[in-house]
């Protein structure tokens, strides 16, 4: 009898040990990743959530905890969190924030991990600091020229006309402005932080201007080409400009009051969602003699250097940036530019002429330098543009002053 009892207890013991051993990995390996992201709009949030759900299904031992940020205070929240060591594992970052955080050592160096994926994505330049990569490109953003076909035809142009050179642009803008009191040929941004420079730089770059010399040592904002660009920008603004903030310009454009303006893919989304009956088309940014260069930015995914779950975090980032995830996201958000090359080949983009323009523009777009002081440089450039447009400063003087400021920032 004792032997039987011992036998039963023995097998029970074995069972318990077995269960413990088998269950242990899932108990130990169950991790939670925190992700802070900016897509809070009710139209797109469900897509984000379903992507997360899909990931959790594919990787049952990883849980994702989602937190929302708004563009108004997101940057400050991230700064505060990183500084106090309470940041998330995965962060969504705007392209112009990467330098600041990478330089302070808050982002994990993922160069080795993404080495094999380099060819599959565009936009690495914006995530590279001191020759190391600190974030993965997710959704790119560029700016193109939006044109109101109705107004252009009324002004006497053919239905398939699209401005290619600056001369075309100015000519068209002037003719459209002449159409009436309430009609303007060009939508020109007013002094808006973090926006105005994105409207001016395309002209700057299209004129062949460079922010820095090739060796990166000197700022050459106030070169002849830069001055010519700002002159032209001012001319467009003064003679045909409807001046307002971004929202005001978009509203007026959608109301059919503006002939042309530079904007991003969110405007396509607005037109679709609000079902606006506007006859419009997009075209590449005009240059002096041929197509010009636009502004490139985007959303990136980075790993917190202080995170202890880098592996899981990277798995998550890779999943989000899969071609199929990107296509699904872009469809829901009407975004034009997935960073994944494979995603860009999807018929969804190929069959939409406007989205095609955006994708084409990416190949002809520059991004700002990856420099921790960039935000201050951006401010200096914006001030120069503001003073030339709204103040009493000469174009050349404003640019020279900005150049001096930027040089000082570089020396610090």
């Amino acid at each position: 009898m004792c032997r039987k009892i011992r036998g039963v207890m023995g097998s029970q013991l074995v069972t318990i040990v077995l269960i413990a051993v088998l269950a242990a990995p899932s108990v130990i390996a169950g991790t939670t990743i925190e992700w802070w992201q900016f897509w809070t709009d009710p139209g797109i949030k469900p897509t984000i959530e379903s992507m997360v759900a899909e990931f959790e299904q594919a990787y049952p031992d990883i849980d994702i905890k989602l937190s929302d940020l708004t563009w108004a205070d997101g940057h400050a929240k991230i700064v505060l969190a990183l500084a106090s060591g309470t940041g998330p594992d995965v962060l969504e970052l705007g392209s112009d924030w990467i330098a600041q955080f990478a330089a302070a050592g808050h982002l994990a160096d993922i160069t080795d991990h993404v080495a094999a994926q380099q060819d599959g994505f565009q936009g690495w330049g914006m995530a590279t600091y001191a020759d190391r990569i600190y974030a993965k490109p997710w959704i790119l953003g560029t700016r193109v020229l939006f044109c109101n076909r109705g107004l252009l035809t009324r002004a006497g142009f053919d239905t398939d006309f699209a401005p290619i050179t600056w001369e075309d642009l100015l000519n068209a803008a002037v003719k459209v402005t002449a159409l009436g009191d309430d009609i303007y040929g060009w939508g020109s941004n007013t002094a808006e932080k973090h926006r105005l420079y994105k409207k001016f730089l395309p002209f700057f770059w299209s004129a062949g201007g460079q922010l820095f010399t090739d060796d990166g040592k000197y700022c050459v904002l106030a070169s002849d080409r830069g001055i010519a660009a700002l002159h032209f920008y001012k001319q467009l603004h003064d003679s045909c400009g409807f001046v307002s903030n971004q929202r005001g310009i978009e509203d007026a454009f959608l109301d059919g009051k503006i002939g042309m303006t530079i904007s991003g893919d969110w405007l396509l989304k607005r037109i679709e969602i609000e079902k606006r009956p506007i006859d419009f088309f997009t075209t590449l940014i005009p240059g002096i003699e041929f197509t010009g260069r636009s502004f490139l930015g985007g959303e990136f995914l980075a790993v917190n250097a202080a995170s202890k779950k880098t592996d899981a975090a990277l798995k998550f980032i890779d999943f989000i940036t899969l071609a199929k995830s990107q296509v699904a996201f872009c469809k829901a958000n009407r975004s034009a530019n997935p960073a994944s090359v494979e995603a860009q080949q999807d018929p969804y983009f190929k069959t939409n002429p406007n989205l095609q323009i955006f994708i084409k523009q990416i190949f002809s777009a520059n991004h700002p330098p990856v420099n921790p002081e960039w935000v201050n440089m951006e401010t200096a450039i914006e001030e120069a543009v503001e003073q030339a447009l709204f103040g009493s400063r000469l174009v050349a003087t404003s640019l020279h002053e900005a150049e001096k400021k930027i040089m000082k920032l570089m020396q610090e």
Partner: protein
Amino acid sequence: MVVPAARSNMLVSLGRYGLLSVILILMVFPLLWMLRISFMGTGQAISMNQVLAAGFTFSNYMDIFSGDLIGRPLLNSAAVGLAVTGGNILFCFMVAYSLARFRYLVNKLLFITVILILMIPAHIIIIPLYVLMLKTGLYDSYWALILPWLVNPIGIFLVKQYIESVPPAMEDAARIDGAGDFRIAFRIVMPLCKPALAVLAIQVFFTNWNSFLFPYILTISSELRTLPVALALYQGHQAVDWQHLMAGSSIAVLPVLVLFMFMQRHVVSGITAGAVKQ
């Protein structure tokens, strides 16, 4: 030309009233403008024609309350305002009583400190207070909105002056009866100080209700925004959504106006205290 006395008096009177009225219109106009726009329907431009021609509608007010654009900030302002006011009433009284009745050398020093604090410009603590709140984990919490403002030096000054004008007879009597210090302070003197405390309460509440800078700096979550912060950060769907913004502003101004109407004397004495030796 000799103008009859009565006539010339009337002219002077008329002239005076005319001047006064012109000034009154100048002073009150912007607030009336705010009200007018708050009752205009959205989608209407704010041009002079529209302002005069457009009708009246409550839709803006309904929108901001139902869209929860102002409900939470209103509650926050009210809660924080009451907390700070209550705190001030209690703590200012306490230290004022201590300074007024307990004659120690240190107290003289402390009183001078109170006067000095009145002169310290608040901007100097913007950065350090921010850092302090971050480090103590009080950043972005109601504590940050309340704690630093619990004892206002103006309040101390006000109440102390008042206490000094109250003869200590009752306190002495109570002491002889064997009452303890705290009892005397709270049961006997504090009720006597109601007028000064009322003035203090109004001053503190007004200042707190209207304050923007520190509530903005010491918080970041939208749930913790007070009214002025919510208004300043309001981003409407239109280019600038004046109608809703003005409706929110009117709501922010309303309590202050109402309080002023009913407690005018207190408001005035709060402001003039310390300015004129009475």
